[in-house]
């Protein structure tokens, strides 16, 4: 079993064997890592960040906030109900709209709209938001996440994308500032 003297040839062959397997391992690791990281490096699949109609603008009466549901454009056949996503549509004054994600800006629970007190309330940790989505009270650090939206040919379109989360939604924050609430 000695690795000295006459067995240097075997020793070298063993080292070669290790080197060979290291190279094979590295070659195989490339596709494996790419496969695992595909949600990150796979690029934007068609449907990411696409404009999607929520239907006719007339469904959303002026001055009211209504729940709308859309089917996520990136969908697998086995997604079931999970690809149907709700959002809150606020028709501010007949011309201006705001569309909010259902997810609380704190930890993503579904916020509910209370038209009587004009507040969004979260059932999980007690976050509350004013009708324009700005933070009213509770643990959230910011207002509700808003979708980019536009009105074309009488239809309300929103830009769908990733699930919003407090740490990664910096791009959404801009649409939040469309209408700053007067500090009541």
């Amino acid at each position, binding site marked *: 079993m000695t690795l000295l003297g006459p067995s240097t040839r075997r020793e070298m062959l063993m080292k070669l064997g290790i080197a060979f397997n290291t190279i094979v391992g590295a070659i195989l690791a490339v596709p494996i890592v790419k496969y695992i990281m595909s949600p990150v490096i796979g690029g934007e699949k068609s449907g990411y960040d696409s404009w999607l109609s929520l239907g006719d603008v007339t469904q959303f009466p002026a001055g009211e906030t209504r729940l709308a549901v859309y089917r996520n454009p990136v969908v697998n056949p086995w997604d079931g109900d999970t690809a149907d*996503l709700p959002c809150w549509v606020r028709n501010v004054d007949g011309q201006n709209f705001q569309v909010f994600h259902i997810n609380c800006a704190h930890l993503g629970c579904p*916020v509910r709209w209370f038209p009587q007190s004009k507040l969004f309330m979260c059932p999980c940790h007690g976050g509350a938001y004013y009708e324009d989505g700005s933070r009213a009270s509770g643990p959230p650090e910011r207002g509700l996440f808003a979708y980019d939206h536009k009105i074309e040919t009488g239809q309300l379109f929103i830009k769908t994308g990733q699930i919003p989360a407090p740490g990664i939604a910096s791009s959404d924050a801009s649409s939040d500032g469309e209408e700053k609430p007067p500090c009541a």
Partner: protein
Amino acid sequence: MRLIETIGKWLDARLQIGETIRETAEHSVPRDTASWFYVFGSAALVVFMLQIATGIMLALIYVPSAGQAWNSLQILNHSITLGWFIRGLHGWGSDFMVAIVLIHMVQVFLFGAYKYPRELTWMVGVLLLLVTLGMAFTGQVLRFDQDAYWGLGIGVSIASHVPLMGSWIVSLMLGGPIIAGATLTRFFALHVFVIPGLLIGFVAVHLLMVIKLGINEWPMPGRIVRKATYVKEYHELTKKDGIPFVPAAVWKDMFFSGAILLAVAACAIYFGPFGPSGQPDPTIIQTAPRPDFFFLWLYAVLSFLPPSMETPAMLIGPVVVIGGLLLLPFIFGEGEKSWKRRPIAVLTILLVAVALGTLTHLATYTPWSPVMDAWSSLPIPAEYLHNRSALERQGALVFQVKQCHNCHSLDHEGGKRGPALDAVALQLTDDQLIRQVIQGGGNMPAYGKNLSPAETTALVSFLKTLHPEGRPPARDAALAHAAGSVAPATHP
């Protein structure tokens, strides 16, 4: 019997393993360790075996598809013979496993078992706690119901706080842009292959070290651990006053593990399986997601952290806690083992236990959440409306309609997010009431834009009636003084 013996001999002549097993089983352990305090590790292992067995049985039926998982659980619960029982065993087995692992950890901590030379045994034990909690969380996700769906949303939000890598981690966790089919399949792979693989590996290393280094001796006050002498002292102890692990100590492990398995089965029969709760349909927003029992404390912590503390606490907290646990044997690797001489260790355990217990208890009734239907389902107590003016009763109506009741309780009914208002008139004057309602503050939203002046007046006049009988409502001292100085003038 002779046949069995013959087959056994034939096998061992080829496997060559019998001697090793015998030596391991009969290895000498300190006499005092044949104790009912030393049964938790083996019980955790036995419950883990139950989890493997019941997990495989559930996998015969369960469909890891976002569209079908919930239905397959219903079929397990209602159509498959004893499917409900296997689900119950697996669910309760999970709770028991986390509980036993925690108890085991407290025991080895209080008995100083993490000290030299068992540092690595403790560290692998910490990893075992983490993977056990990982199994509990991923298992909760596989029970693909509303709690699982929104629980994933909470996981996404927490993971997104990681600096730089946040959005990567979220994408890897979800397998796509939203919580959907790809998310469930990855949690299935984690729960069924990846984490159990780690768990088995860690258990093997953990057990190997327990056998090689010997079980921690019963700590005696004054018997100090010193690196220079400990191993020699331990060997003397096992040689002089040792007993063979099998059968002298193992029978207690067996009795305890058996009792635990019976308890799991009893819970499965009596309480049944966990859920599933409502369908994982995100458009059903009338839901109040709750995590499973062993994550309730975390749920409470997340609602009490002030917004400014949240990101630092989420990022630094786990690093400090896990890092502290891993480093513990290096900081306190020598010295006293007995809990009788380690008051700070005992106090730490008590403090952590009381804190986790209190947080868990709070999370069972979530005083921080508004009671979403209080305004429409809980009437104002009748005695709060007796002998009130029309304006005050109108104010009571405003109180209900504007959902004040969701956050404020009257006569112990209603939300506990804000203070109870049964005696609010003692604490705030008219002007302060109006200001609080209109401007909010102190964690209360401002209602200025949502209340007409008439509504505000009515509401405040109702709130002014909320004070115990015989105790006058608060009044503005300045105004009272002005009124007082006028009064004598009218009666000269």
